[in-house]
């Protein structure tokens, strides 16, 4: 077979004369893998014209029009000191000297808080009480306190009901010393936290002792120290700093009341505590020594919920006032915390003694009421900072159903979907049987909605009288804003009221 390859062709295959090849010095060549020739660079010996530096872009350089790059921020400017930005963010301003003083504005007192004629009016918080409210961190940064001359809250229907309730608990009637337990829910900006604030203000007016957890998330977000409670209870964890700050809040806010009460029980865990010592000093002890703060808190709680002194210490006993406990952002306590065990397992929030104590209050007491001297537990959920927890949602529905008298075995009783991985501990925390004590109310869910049109009108008039709103406040205008605010959601009303609009002349 003849090869198709022609030998004569091979003989012609000769190397091209050397001169045809471009000389390596004549034309600058790029890397061997590059097929395109490089543009001629100007002779470096030649003088450069002022505007013309190396013509053309280099390899792999963007050919589009280049903008001048911004200079990076030089590292010399120091960031603000640690904590300054957070302090600015969390700063609470309660007064605006540019706002007009509202004439004839009434203060929150024992009389006005139950006066239904004042419904829809804005009641100012008494100035001496502001320090107490600040101490218990009742104010939140974005509640719009800083736009008015002085802080005030609307007396809405829920507020009046609560005022009457507090009045009865502190009064002399048959409701004296009852314990009210409520979980407060509601849509976004509907005034749940301000409702808690109003409760605190009323409690201070009525000389109650107020315990608050202003942000439930802080207890479970692993930002404070924690440790096992004791060798006997290695699965329970105590948060000393958080407890100390709770004691400190309580101490500052309730100083006058606690200074009049004395230790009337023996506290074996605290050797330094002597009977006859004021409760103020007891609390101070826990603030100064965080290691013993949890024991001090327990002692303080035992003292405040005591109905009588132990034998021999009767002279130290004076009747204890009712207690108000508020927690804001309850849903954060219904799941695993950010804390870890030594095996690096997540710690459930219910294993933190602090959380456990406040959740246990929701259940009815064994022999006597959980708050034997009366008081209120108001635990609010949050909607702006709210983990979505299925079991908690169902638990709240079950609480509402149970309060409405639905039998747990009835078909209409809210059921858990077993496939949605429910957390049994959460459900367990809200299962409360009928309280044995008549003085103890059943756990209920209170949903806060929008204010009525009349209340909205009073609120908007307050804006107008403070000089923030330059429009004629009439029923039609208020009705429009009421609808735009989703049926009188008060936070939205505030947002509409503070939008500065100059009416057309």
């Amino acid at each position, binding site marked *: 077979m003849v090869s198709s390859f022609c030998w004569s062709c091979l003989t012609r295959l000769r190397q091209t004369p050397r001169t045809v090849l471009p000389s390596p010095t004549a034309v600058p060549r790029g890397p061997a893998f590059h097929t395109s020739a490089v543009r001629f660079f100007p002779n470096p010996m030649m003088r450069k014209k002022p505007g013309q530096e190396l013509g053309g872009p280099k390899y792999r350089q963007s050919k*589009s029009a280049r903008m001048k790059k911004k200079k990076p921020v030089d590292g010399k400017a120091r960031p603000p000191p640690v904590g300054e930005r957070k302090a600015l963010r969390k700063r609470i301003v309660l007064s605006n000297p540019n706002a007009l003083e509202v004439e004839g504005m009434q203060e929150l007192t024992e009389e006005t808080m139950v006066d239904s004629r004042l419904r829809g009016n804005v009641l100012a918080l008494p100035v001496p009480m502001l320090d107490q409210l600040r101490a218990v961190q009742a104010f939140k940064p974005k509640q719009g306190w800083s736009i008015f001359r002085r802080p005030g809250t609307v007396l809405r229907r829920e507020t009046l009901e609560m005022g009457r309730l507090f009045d009865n608990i502190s009064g002399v009637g048959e409701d004296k010393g009852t314990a009210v337990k409520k979980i407060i829910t509601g*849509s976004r900006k509907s005034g749940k936290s301000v409702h808690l604030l109003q409760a605190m203000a009323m409690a201070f007016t009525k000389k109650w002792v107020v315990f608050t957890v202003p942000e439930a998330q802080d207890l479970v977000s692993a930002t404070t120290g924690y440790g096992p409670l004791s060798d006997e209870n290695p699965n329970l964890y105590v948060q000393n700093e958080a407890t100390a700050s709770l004691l400190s809040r309580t101490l500052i806010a309730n100083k006058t009341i606690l200074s009049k009460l004395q230790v009337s029980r023996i506290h074996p865990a605290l050797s330094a505590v002597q009977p006859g010592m004021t409760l103020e000093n007891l609390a101070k002890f826990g603030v100064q020594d965080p290691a013993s703060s949890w024991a001090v808190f327990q002692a303080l709680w035992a003292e405040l919920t005591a109905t009588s002194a132990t034998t021999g210490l009767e002279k130290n006993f004076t009747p204890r006032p009712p207690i108000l406990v508020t927690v804001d952002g309850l849903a954060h306590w219904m799941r695993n915390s950010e804390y870890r065990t030594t095996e690096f397992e997540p710690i459930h929030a219910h294993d933190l003694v602090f959380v456990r104590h406040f959740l246990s209050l929701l259940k009815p007491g064994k022999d006597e009421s959980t708050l034997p001297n009366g008081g209120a537990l108001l635990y609010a959920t949050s909607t702006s900072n709210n983990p979505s927890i299925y079991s908690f949602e169902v638990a709240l529905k079950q609480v509402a159903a149970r309060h409405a008298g639905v039998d747990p075995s009835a078909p209409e009783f809210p059921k858990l979907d077993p496939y949605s991985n429910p957390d049994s501990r959460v459900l367990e925390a809200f299962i409360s049987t009928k309280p044995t004590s008549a003085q103890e109310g059943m756990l209920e869910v209170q949903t806060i909605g929008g204010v009525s049109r009349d209340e909205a009108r009073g609120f908007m008039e307050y804006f107008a009288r403070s000089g923030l709103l330059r429009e004629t406040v009439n029923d039609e205008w208020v009705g429009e804003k009421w*609808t735009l*605010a*989703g*049926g009188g*959601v008060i936070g939205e009303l505030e947002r509409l009221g503070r*939008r500065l609009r100059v009416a057309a002349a």
Partner: protein
Amino acid sequence: MARQSPRGVVHAMQSVRSTTSLRAFLSQRSAAPAYIIPGASLSTRTQQWKNARGYATEVQPAAPEIDFAKFHTQPTRIIPRSPAYFSGSPKFIDHLLRLEDILAKYVSLPTVSAAEAPRKAWFKLPQFRDVVGEPIATKKYKGLLKLLQRLNRIDPNLMPKAVRLSLDDFIRPGNPYGNKPAPATVDNLGRARGKGKRKASSAVVHLVEGNGEVLVNGKTLVEAFPRVHDRESATWALRCTARLDKYNVWVAVRGGGTTGQAEAITLALGRALMVHEPALKPTLRKAGVITVDRRRVERKKPGHVKARKMPTWVKR
């Protein structure tokens, strides 16, 4: 051409026989250069053909008597039927003149206002051009439309049949305004229903008398629209008529984004409100609530980055 050749033969023979007859023939041909009258030319031809083959002994019949009554009906030059024949668009001008005549005749009849006159779907210009088969300028057709509208404004009770028939010639086939949907009514539960679309959203609104509560997909207005502007635009139909506290609104809205949904609700709400109170239509129209905005996203084109955006210009 086929007919031309026997005539050529005739021509040749005639040139031999008599120049007088040739002269007559030529004069006959030149008399009607553009419009050949076949009958006339054929008759002369057969006559001369006969002459060519005739015998000398044969008795020649006399030429038929000239009928002077017929003589004038057959003019030598045909006159076009329309005087506008040479104008370029004779049919159109005929229509125009006819309408003008009618108008002049009936101009004294009472008229109604344009809003009360029966709505007619006149031919669109391209359609009319097809019907007439002539190029018609837009402006001239507008003039015709004005005439039609003026005639249409004659009181319907007094409109003569002639006018009605002549107007019908200019109406689009298919009767576009003839079949109207039944007007929406409030149902037995007091609900009015309205639909609206905007961008990619479509909304259905059920409006009942109430006290100003709004539910959008089962959520409150605040939950559905975090932005105040959207809430305002969704309820604008009620707001601009001061009915915000007179009705309750249920909305089901699907598709699109927040703004589109809000503005779809605006339209649907405006339409539902017109069911309850048709007299509000002028107010709603002025407020721009029942005006449909049918714009959609412009399509992306090849060679463009988006609908109109072009890639950055590169020198090489």
